[in-house]
């Protein structure tokens, strides 16, 4: 009895193999954590470092202050950039989410001439590297700016239009895949109940595809906030810049020592994205269709 007890509970017997059984997981975890957090801590530390240079930045700053943040708002048009970015990001994300959902609904539910061709061309367009189109887009928008300055250079709307086009195909494909998993009987049942196409779309299907809406919305927002190349070409006026373009301008010059301000701006830039992710996270869960049909 005593023997059995000791062999069952003594941790001592497992001590030698602790590293082999559990420990190595912790080690990998610690390394991964360090790897992930290092840049964040470095940027945070630089943002709080009043000296504001890259070379003087250490992981734990010697004298922390909010001086960089003060200068960010006082000496740059950070607040304007922030507003521009939110406007462009939100509008692009929400519009592309809605347009793609409409397209995906049609591609998933209806059979029409050109359906396959449409899907294929979306895929092909998607494969074309967008950055190569910058020159063509620049030329196009030169003319557009001449005729319709409201959607031309240095306006958020021109850029939003571009982001919409860029996100449309991948979002449509992503969503169509998800729409296809919603049983068709639900549409048919609603149809028999008397619902119109739009009632089915808004009342039955959209509530069930919330997870994919959240994902595409989030991706759309992050892409729009982080996008640099197009924004840099299109937004040259200081008052129309987004955060990515504006902040880059702070450190682009050769002899700038705005690194502290740049990092302070970066930290603030991350806030809306993290907040949005926290908010949308609860929608990005599967299993919403459970119980619709026998499962």
């Amino acid at each position, binding site marked *: 009895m005593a023997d059995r007890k000791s062999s069952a509970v003594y941790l001592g017997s497992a001590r030698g193999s602790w590293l082999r059984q559990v420990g190595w997981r912790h080690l990998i975890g610690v390394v991964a954590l360090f790897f992930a957090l290092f840049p964040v801590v470095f940027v945070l530390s630089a943002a709080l470092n009043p000296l504001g240079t890259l070379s003087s930045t250490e992981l734990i700053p010697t004298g922390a202050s909010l001086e960089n943040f003060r200068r960010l708002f006082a000496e740059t048009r950070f607040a304007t950039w922030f507003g521009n970015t939110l406007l462009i990001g939100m509008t692009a994300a929400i519009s592309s989410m809605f347009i793609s959902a409409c397209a995906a609904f049609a591609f998933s539910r209806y059979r029409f001439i050109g359906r396959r061709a449409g899907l294929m061309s979306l895929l092909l367009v998607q494969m074309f590297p967008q950055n190569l189109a910058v020159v063509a887009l620049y030329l196009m928008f030169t003319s557009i700016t001449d005729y319709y300055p409201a959607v031309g250079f240095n306006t958020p709307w021109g850029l939003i239009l571009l982001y919409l086009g860029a996100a449309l195909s991948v979002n449509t494909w992503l969503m169509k895949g998800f729409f296809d998993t919603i*049983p068709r*009987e*639900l549409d*048919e*049942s*609603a*149809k*028999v*109940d*008397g*619902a*119109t196409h739009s*009632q089915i779309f808004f009342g*039955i299907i959209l*509530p*069930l595809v919330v997870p994919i809406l959240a994902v595409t919305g989030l991706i759309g927002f992050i892409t729009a906030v982080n996008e640099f190349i197009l924004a840099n070409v299109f937004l040259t006026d200081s008052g129309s810049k987004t955060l990515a373009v504006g902040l880059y301008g702070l450190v682009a010059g050769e002899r700038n020592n705005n690194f502290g301000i740049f990092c302070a701006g970066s930290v603030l830039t991350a806030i809306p994205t993290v907040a949005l992710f926290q908010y949308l996270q609860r929608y990005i869960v599967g299993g*919403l*269709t*459970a*119980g*619709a*049909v*026998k499962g």
Partner: protein
Amino acid sequence: MAEVVLEKINKTYENGFHAVIDLDLEIADGEFLVLVGPSGCGKTTALRMVAGLEDISSGTMRIGSRVVNTLSPKDRDIAMVFQSYALYPHMSVADNIAYGLKIRKMSKEEIQRRVKRAADMLELGPLLDRKPKQLSGGQRQRVAMGRAIVRQPQVFLMDEPLSNLDAKLRVQMRAEIAQLQRDLAVTTVYVTHDQIEAMTMGDRVAVMKAGLLQQVGQPQYIYDNPDNLFVAGFIGSPPMNMALAVLEREGADGLAVLVGSARLVLAASVAVARPGLAAYIGRDVAIGVRSEDMEDARLVPGAPADARLRAQVNLTEALGSEIVVHFEIDARRVVTEDTRLLEKHTGAAEAVHHDTGTRFVASFAPRSPVKPRDQIEVVVDTERLHFFDPKTGVAIRG
């Protein structure tokens, strides 16, 4: 409420598949019609055409006095219960039931009144606030029914509504749906592949095969008078036993059949009722025997010798009220397109046929002492034999 009339309804898909061929059906006001057949026979397609979920290739469909060929489902005043129930997962039970009424912009009070009535009828009262995923299969089935009855439509359409339930619940829901339909007296078209549901629920049964309507009639009539081998084998459980036999003249105007080594003399009434049999004298006929028309010879001491089959028992299943006996006789098997299709439907196609004769299934009275591997004699009620043309499978009657 209304009658439903299908006239020469056809459905051809784009790939050329002819799913429903010249379907003629008249479903009377308030009638419960069951469309039954093996999978792929076109019964669900036919139902979906009534619902308006499938285009009609040709023919005329009427509900009440209106031709509905081109009407959308919402304008046909029908309600449908789907095999998968198709409940809206993000809505509560009450909202699921009320959805069709809300779409039709009915007043809140009226919706509430109707939902409550339907819920009471189906005993869904305590579940109204739940989501579909919190319900059991039977409860979901009830919600689907509730969604149909709350609209008070002219026609109910049901597409295998019980096939996702377990056996016990199925029996219970079968009775409930039949009862509900009788109470509401709404014209109902019910699709199933289960012939027991067809027999027990329908006022009339329509048997379909490969897009073609085989026979329509009251369940008992179809059971007793199948028009062809397919209907004979499909309706009834266990299915009708079939064997090839040779028809012979017996005496002056009597008839007999040679079934393997046995010779069954037919009652005079058989020949009188089926003058068409005369043409088959000296030729093969397919005979059909229902399981209940056979009995262990030891239990019928006075049975004549010319009404007996010699049999080798393979298996017995004592059910208490009867003994189901599987045995083999030395007659030739009936093999036609129909029997092959039936075997596929029952899954018998996969079973190994190592027997050379024909397998019969009979139900004996429980006091029969029959045991597996017995050599027994089986008395056949020759008045209740069925005769079919062995090539076309059509019943030999007039």
